[in-house]
C-alpha cells in the first residue's frame, strides 16, 4: 500500500492501541523547558513515579531567561524560581540540562536540531506549541501541555488520536528578500488559523527543496498557527549534510546505517492525502501582518483591508483588530512609523536569519527613537554570529545584541514593549498584549524587520536593498 511519510513514521512508532482507542506513540526525544517542567517534576515526585528514559530527555532554560549581557539566575526576578526549580528537577532525575551558563543554552527548538538531538524520522515532543519547528529536519514533533509532559516522562509515549494527512505543495522559486517566513504567513492567510486543525502537514514542492534547513524550520515552526498537529518536511541531501557530524547524531558506521534508512523517508508517489493545498511562491512578495491574529496578513505593498472586502466570518475580528492596532482600512503598511523592532525567537533566530538581517543593516543606522533588538536563538548561534562579525554590524547600527532565549516572543523574561508601541517582530504571534500590554505587533521576516529598523517605518527590504546599489 502506498503510504505518506507521516504514516511511515507514525506506524513505526505505534507501540499499542490503548483501551480508549488512542495510539500510544513512542517519543524518541523529549525536550523540556523551565516554564512548564517544574509542575511535572512535582507531580512525579508526589506520585512516586520515576522518569522512564532520562537518557532520551533533555532540558533547556529559555522562556524566562534574561537577555542582558552578564545575566544570572536573578537578572529577571520573575524567572529565577523557574530556572532554579528546573536545575533541581533535572539533577534529581538525571536529565541533561543546557543551563543558563551552558555554551549550548538556547531555545529548545533551536538547540535540539543544532546539536543533532532530533533526527529525521524520529518523534519529538516539547511542552510548547512550536515543537514542530524541528519538522524542518524531517522529525515528527508534537507540542503538548504539562499533564502530557508528565505522561511522557513516566511512559516515554504520548496517547494520541491519529491525525489526518495534509500536504502543502509550494512551487516556484522565492524572489530576492523573500523567505520561508513570508511563505508561512501567506499559507496562514490562505487556510486560516484553524485550517490545519486535525492534520499532520507535510510541506513539499520545489520551493521547499531549495530552502536551507533553517528556513524549513521557520516554515514548520509556524504550522501551529494554522492549528496543525504537526508539520514536517521529508529529509534530503540538504538535511543529511546539515546534520552530519553534529554531536548527538550517530557517528561512523552507525551514521551510514541511519542514512540508508533516512533515504527511504519520503511519501510514496501515489500516497493519498486527506487534504492538499498548493501555493505558487514565484510571485510572492514579502508578507506582514496588520491585525491581531497571524492570518491577518497582506503583501508588503498592500494596505490594511477594507472590511467589506473580507469574508463575513472574519469581519468582526478585523474590526476589533483595527481598534487594537490603531489602524484604519486603506492605510498602506509601508510607511507606518514603528517604535520597536525585534529579531529573534524560535521562528527566526538562527544564523542565516541573522545574516539576512545583517546584510540589510550593514553600514546603516537604526532610525532615531526606534528600539531595535537582536536575540540569537542559542548561545551557539550567538558565538557563530560573533565569529562572523554580525554582532558588530548590529551594534554599530544601534541594535541591542542579547544573550539567547525566547525574549520578546512572549515577554516571559521581562523583555516587553511599552503600551501603544508599534513593533515589527520576527516572532510567531501578534496576539493582543503578547509582547507587552497594548503593544501592536506586526509579524514579518528578518529582512523586513531589519529594513524597518533602519527606516523607522515599515519598509520593503527590496527597496532598501535597491537603494544601495
Amino acid at each position, binding site marked *: 500500500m502506498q503510504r505518506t511519510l507521516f504514516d511511515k513514521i507514525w506506524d513505526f512508532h505505534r507501540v*499499542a492501541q*490503548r*483501551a*480508549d*482507542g*488512542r495510539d*500510544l506513540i513512542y517519543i*524518541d526525544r523529549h525536550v523540556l523547558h523551565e*516554564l*512548564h517542567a*517544574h509542575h511535572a517534576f512535582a507531580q512525579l515526585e508526589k506520585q512516586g*513515579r520515576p522518569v*522512564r528514559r532520562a*537518557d*532520551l530527555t533533555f532540558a533547556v532554560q529559555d522562556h524566562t531567561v534574561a537577555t542582558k549581557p552578564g545575566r544570572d539566575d536573578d537578572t529577571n526576578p*520573575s524567572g529565577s*524560581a*523557574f530556572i532554579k526549580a528546573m536545575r533541581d528537577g533535572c539533577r534529581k532525575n538525571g536529565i*541533561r540540562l543546557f543551563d543558563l551558563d551552558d555554551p549550548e543554552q538556547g531555545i529548545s527548538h533551536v538547540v535540539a536540531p543544532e546539536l543533532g*538531538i532530533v*533526527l529525521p524520522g*524520529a518523534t519529538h515532543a516539547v511542552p*510548547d*506549541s512550536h515543537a514542530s519547528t524541528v519538522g524542518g529536519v524531517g522529525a515528527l514533533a508534537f*507540542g503538548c*501541555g*504539562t*499533564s*502530557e509532559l508528565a*505522561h511522557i516522562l*513516566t*511512559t516515554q*509515549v504520548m*496517547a494520541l488520536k491519529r491525525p489526518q494527512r495534509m500536504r502543502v505543495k509550494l512551487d516556484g522559486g522565492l524572489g530576492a528578500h523573500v523567505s520561508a517566513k513570508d511563505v508561512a504567513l501567506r499559507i496562514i492567510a490562505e487556510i486560516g*488559523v*484553524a485550517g490545519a*486543525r*486535525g492534520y499532520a502537514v507535510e510541506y513539499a514542492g520545489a520551493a521547499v527543496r531549495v530552502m536551507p534547513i533553517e528556513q524549513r524550520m521557520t516554515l514548520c515552526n509556524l504550522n501551529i498557527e494554522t*492549528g496543525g*498537529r504537526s508539520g514536517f518536511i521529508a529529509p534530503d541531501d540538504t538535511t543529511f549534510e546539515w546534520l552530519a557530524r553534529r*554531536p*548527538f*547524531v*550517530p557517528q561512523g558506521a*552507525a551514521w551510514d*546505517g541511519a542514512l540508508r*534508512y533516512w533515504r527511504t523517508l519520503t511519501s510514496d508517489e501515489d500516497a493519498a492525502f486527506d487534504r492538499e493545498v498548493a501555493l505558487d511562491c514565484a510571485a510572492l512578495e514579502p508578507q506582514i501582518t496588520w491585525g491581531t*491574529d497571524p492570518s491577518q496578513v497582506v503583501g508588503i505593498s498592500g494596505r490594511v483591508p477594507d472590511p467589506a472586502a473580507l469574508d463575513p*466570518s472574519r469581519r*468582526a475580528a478585523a474590526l476589533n483588530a483595527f481598534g487594537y492596532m490603531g489602524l484604519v482600512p486603506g492605510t498602506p503598511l509601508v510607511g507606518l512609523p514603528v517604535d520597536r523592532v525585534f529579531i529573534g525567537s524560535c521562528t527566526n533566530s538562527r544564523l542565516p536569519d541573522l545574516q539576512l538581517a545583517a546584510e540589510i543593516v550593514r553600514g546603516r543606522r537604526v532610525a532615531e527613537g526606534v528600539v531595535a533588538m537582536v536575540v540569537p536563538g542559542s548561545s551557539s548561534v550567538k558565538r557563530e554570529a560573533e565569529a562572523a562579525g554580525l554582532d558588530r554590524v548590529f551594534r554599530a547600527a544601534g541594535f541591542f545584541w542579547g544573550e539567547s532565549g525566547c525574549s520578546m516572543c*512572549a*515577554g*516571559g523574561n*521581562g523583555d516587553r514593549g511599552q503600551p501603544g508601541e508599534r513593533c515589527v517582530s520576527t516572532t510567531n*504571534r501578534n*496576539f*493582543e*498584549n*503578547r509582547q507587552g*500590554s497594548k503593544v501592536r505587533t506586526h509579524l514579518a521576516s528578518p529582512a523586513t524587520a531589519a529594513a524597518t529598523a533602519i527606516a523607522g517605518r515599515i519598509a520593503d527590504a527590496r527597496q532598501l536593498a535597491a537603494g544601495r546599489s
Partner: protein
Amino acid sequence: MQPFTRHTGVAAPLLKDDINTDQVAPILHTRGLKEDYRAMLFHRARRRDDGSEDPDFVLNKPQFRAAVILVTGQNFGAGSSRESAVWSMLANGIRVIVAKSFAEIYRENCLQNGLLPVVLGSDAADEFIARVIAADGQAPFTVDLSTQQISGPGGPDICFEIPAAERTRLLEGLDDIGLTLKHSDEIANWERRAKTAQPWLQSARDSRRSA
C-alpha cells in the same frame, strides 16, 4: 483527576471566535512557581486601562460571576500550550466549555484536568447561545455527561457528542498515566525492536563525551 458527571450552574456567553490562551491566561510581570490561577483568568480582559474591573466584561457582570459553563465560538484555546489556561478556568469554578470548536492542544489539556469540552455544531451552538443570552444568568443550565445532554431554560434538551472513551475517562476520573502504564510491557518490547530496526533512536549520546 477529578471525575466529571454532571454540573449545574450559570452559563456565561463569551461570544468571540479564536480566543487564544494568551488571553485566557496571560503571562504576567510578577510571577512565581505558585501562581494565583484564580486571578490569572482573563486577567487583562477583565480590567480597564487603570487596572480597575471592566464592568462590561462578561465574567465581571454580577449575574455571571459564579458561572460554571462558558459558552464561546470557533477555535477556542488557540496558541500556546500552557495548561494554566485550563487550571485558571477550574480555579474559578468553570467546569464546562461549550464551543463551536477547540484548538487541539487546549482540548487535550481540558480532558487531562476534568474540564468538559463540549462541541456543538454551528446551528445547535447558535440556538444554545440564544438561550444562554435569554437566560442572562437568571436560571441555571445542567450539563450531564452520563446522558450527554444539556438542559435548561428556553427549549428542549440538547444532545452532544463526545468519543465514548473520553466520556468514560472523564466520568471515572481515570488517571491517564495509569491507563498507559498498563502497556508497560509493550513499551519495553517496542524499545527492544527499535534497538534493532533503528538503533540510533534508542541512544542519544553526546559523541564528544564518549569514553
